[in-house]
Structures are given as C-alpha cells and as structure tokens.
C-alpha cells in the first residue's frame, strides 16, 4: 500500500504546494490593470505600425491614459479616432493634420534611365545591395516595388519605373517609409504645399547627367521664397511644411521642375507649372490665388 500511497502523496503535495504558492503570489503581487489604457486600446485601429512614435497601439494607449501623449497622433485612425479618444479622456482633440506619404523622386523612364540590366531578385532591397541599385541616379527610385508590397491599403503603384502613392488611400502607417532602401518616402502634411520631389545630393552637373528632372541645387527657390520655407542643403532643396503657404513661387522659378505643388487635400498634383499665378500689384511677387496676395503698405 505504501508503495503507491507515498508517491501519490509526494506528487500531490508538490502540486498543491506549487498551486498554493502561485495562488498567493498572484494575489500578493497582482499588478493593477489599467482599465483606462485598455479602453483606449480598443478605440485605436490596432495596426501596430508605430507611426505615432510609440511601441505599437498598446504603448500609445498607455501613454494616452497617463497623459504623456496627446490624442491625434495616430495617422491610421485619423480625426475620427482622435475625437473618440478625446471624448473619452475629456480633453481637447487638438489639431489633427492628416499626413500622407510622398515619394521624393520623379525618376520615371522619361526622365532617367537604368544604368544596368538587372536580373537578380526582384526587390528594391536586393537590387540596392548590387552597386547601389539599378537606376542611373543612385539616390532615385528603382521601381521594383518594395513599398508597393509593404502597403496594406493598396495605395502605392509603380508607374513608368517610379513609385506613386495615392494620397486618398494613404493611411499614413509608415510601412512604405520603412520599406524603401533609398529612404525616398517621407510624410508631408496634406495641405497646399510645395514639395521638392528629388533626393539627389550630388552637384548640379552630376545630377543633370543622370536625370532631367532632378534638383541641381541652384538656390533659385531659396532666394525666391518670401517665407523662409525653402532651403538648399547638400545640393538638394527641401521645404519646411510649417512655413510653406503653398504660393507656388518656388515651383515657378525651378529650372528643372523638381518642385511641385500638392493640393490642400493632397489628392491633386499640379504638374509642369500649369497652375494659375497671380501677380501682386503691390509687391510684384507671384501668388497662386488672390487669397494669398499679401498687401504690403
């Protein structure tokens, strides 16, 4: 009898002891659950993209519940989610400017060429390892579609050898930004805005050789801009979206048409200087509509 009873007792005893210790430990060391954070977590879209700057939706929900972050940082959820969260938290939603991803390259086959015939793996990451990529411009889009595959919302297409993002479909999740090995994609606010759609840091003559539409760093835009929004650094211009009012003066003077104006909703792009410019009678500057004319006394 003892032969059976002793082992049963010992195993049962160890099991009971372990169970008791676990039960006591889970009560004594219980971590209070953050109900607020969990409720907020349910409101967030759950894409876990990290575009808000926190480690996924859980991280953002935690920061929101402890008041470290403001609602409206989630580009995927947009204004709707921001409104829900601010109602729940009882605070002001703040300004939610929608941001859309933009490819800073227009190196289509009309403007640039491939320097080699590439027969390797059909990904940008793969091609970028071989001698800096296949495009003649080493900074430019290779058009092999890593961003297209990364996009969960079907917003990116490869057209004529260059990636194009449909701003209406872009949710701002930043997956394409991370996928591009040439770091050509970045966010711009969806408002009327000038953007430099080139990333070539070479000197003007070098840029001219590889691309018809590249930024040559001539600084005409910098001199033209009345709002201190355009600056040329490393032979490529960049626009400060905070300061830019979208007047289009820089796009008008750009000799290579590397600067484009994107429209308020980010949906329409005005190409090749076809937008209407209005000359101000007082200061002689060109502006895009009459609303933008600033009267200087």
């Amino acid at each position, binding site marked *: 009898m003892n032969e059976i009873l002793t082992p049963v007792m010992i195993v049962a005893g160890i099991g009971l002891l372990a169970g008791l*210790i*676990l039960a006591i430990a889970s009560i004594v060391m*219980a971590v209070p659950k953050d109900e607020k954070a969990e409720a907020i977590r349910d409101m967030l879209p759950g894409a876990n993209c990290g575009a808000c700057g926190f480690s996924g939706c859980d991280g953002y929900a935690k920061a929101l519940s402890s008041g470290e972050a403001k609602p409206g940082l989630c580009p995927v959820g947009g204004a709707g989610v921001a409104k829900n969260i601010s109602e729940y938290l009882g605070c002001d939603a703040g300004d939610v400017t929608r941001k859309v991803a933009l490819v800073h390259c227009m190196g289509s086959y009309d403007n640039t060429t491939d320097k080699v015939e590439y027969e390797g793996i059909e990904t940008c990451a793969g091609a970028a390892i071989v001698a800096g990529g296949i495009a003649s411009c080493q900074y430019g889009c290779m058009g092999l579609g890593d961003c297209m595959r990364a996009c969960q919302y079907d917003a990116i297409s490869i057209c004529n050898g260059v990636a194009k993002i449909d701003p209406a479909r872009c949710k701002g999740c930043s997956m394409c930004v991370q996928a591009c090995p040439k770091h050509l994609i970045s966010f711009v606010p969806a408002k009327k805005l000038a953007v430099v759609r080139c990333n070539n840091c070479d000197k003007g003559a070098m840029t001219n050789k590889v691309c018809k539409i590249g930024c040559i760093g001539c600084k005409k835009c910098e001199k033209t801009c009345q709002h201190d929004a355009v600056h040329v650094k490393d032979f490529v211009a960049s626009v400060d979206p905070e300061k830019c009012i979208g007047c289009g003066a820089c796009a008008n003077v750009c000799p290579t048409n590397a600067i484009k104006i994107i429209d308020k909703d980010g949906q329409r792009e005005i190409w090749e200087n076809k937008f209407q410019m209005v000359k101000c009678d007082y200061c002689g500057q060109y502006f895009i509509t009459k609303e933008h004319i600033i009267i200087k006394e």
Partner: protein
Amino acid sequence: MIKSLVAIFLAAILTENYILNKFLGICPFLGVSKKLDTATGMSIAVTFVMVISTAVTWPIYTYVLEPHGLAYLQTIVFILIIAALVQFIEIVLKKYIPSLYNALGVYLPLITTNCAVLGVTMLVIEKGQSDPGFGYIQSLVNAFGSGIGFLVAMVIFAGIRERIEHNDIPKSLQGLPITLVAASLTAVSFLGFQGLVEGMLG
C-alpha cells in the same frame, strides 16, 4: 575545480549543444529564429529558466525523490515543478521588473513546456549518477552553459535565416523545407567541435 567547471561550460556550449547535438528544443529553434532580436530574447529567457529550474529540481530529486526510491517519478515531478516555476517567475517579473517582463514576457509561457529545459534538468542528474564528482555546482554550470549553447545556436541560425530570406529558392523548397536543410547543415558543422574541449583542457 575551476578548470573542470570551464570544461563543463565549454562542453555544454559546443560539443553537447542541446539543439545541434542532442536535437532538443527544436520547436523554438525553427519557430522563433526568424528574426535576430526575438531569437536573442527567447534564448535569454531559456537560459534564465534552465538555470533556475536546475537549481530547484536537483535538490528535490536528490533529497526527496531518491531517498524514497521514487526516481521513476522524475519526469512528471519535473514537469510540474518547471511549469509552476515559470508561472511564478512570470508573476514576479511582472510585479518587480516590468522592463524585463516586457522583453521576455512573450517567451516565458512558451518555455513552460520546452523539452530543452526538461532535458537539461534530467540529463544533469543522469550525469551526476555516472560521475560522483558531478554535483550541484557542476549541474548549475552545465545548465548555464546549455542555455548559452541554445543562444549560440539560435543566433547563428537567425543569421542564416535572414540570409535565406533574400535568396531565390526553388518553389518546392520554400519555407520550412529549406529551413530544415539549413538546420541539418548547421548541426553537421557543430560535429566539428567533437573532442575540442577534451583536447583543450583535458
């Protein structure tokens, strides 16, 4: 003493590697080795649990089971203890070291039923029976070395898998088949360490 401990430690990493020589713990080896950071996190958690569970199961076997002639209960008791222990560690980490919990938390429940952990605790006792000099400290060093060996294998294999991702693999071999082929080749390469530790310190 020190020399023999170093020999045990190195042998546990290279010649007695739990994944590549004993083929234990293959599930995390194939499942979690897709990315370097998850592979490292998992291995650190495994090392941690291996050492602690050896530290607990060795005295229980030596002082409770063996004197009562209950050595045959070893497997079931060890599973019970390791499962409870991992749960306990999870609770403690959640409360007192949340940063470590965030880093290892996902992997801890996975380890509860990991055969490598059970294998270490049982083989350590087997070794102690065949060699009287193999006591508690030696067992702990062996468990720690086994964990580091797990880490080495995982990190090597994570690197290999990241390379495989960028390769053009025939359709019939894509996914798990090519991973298993790569795993077998890695295991074969570890055969090269056979006799190394004895030659170095023996």
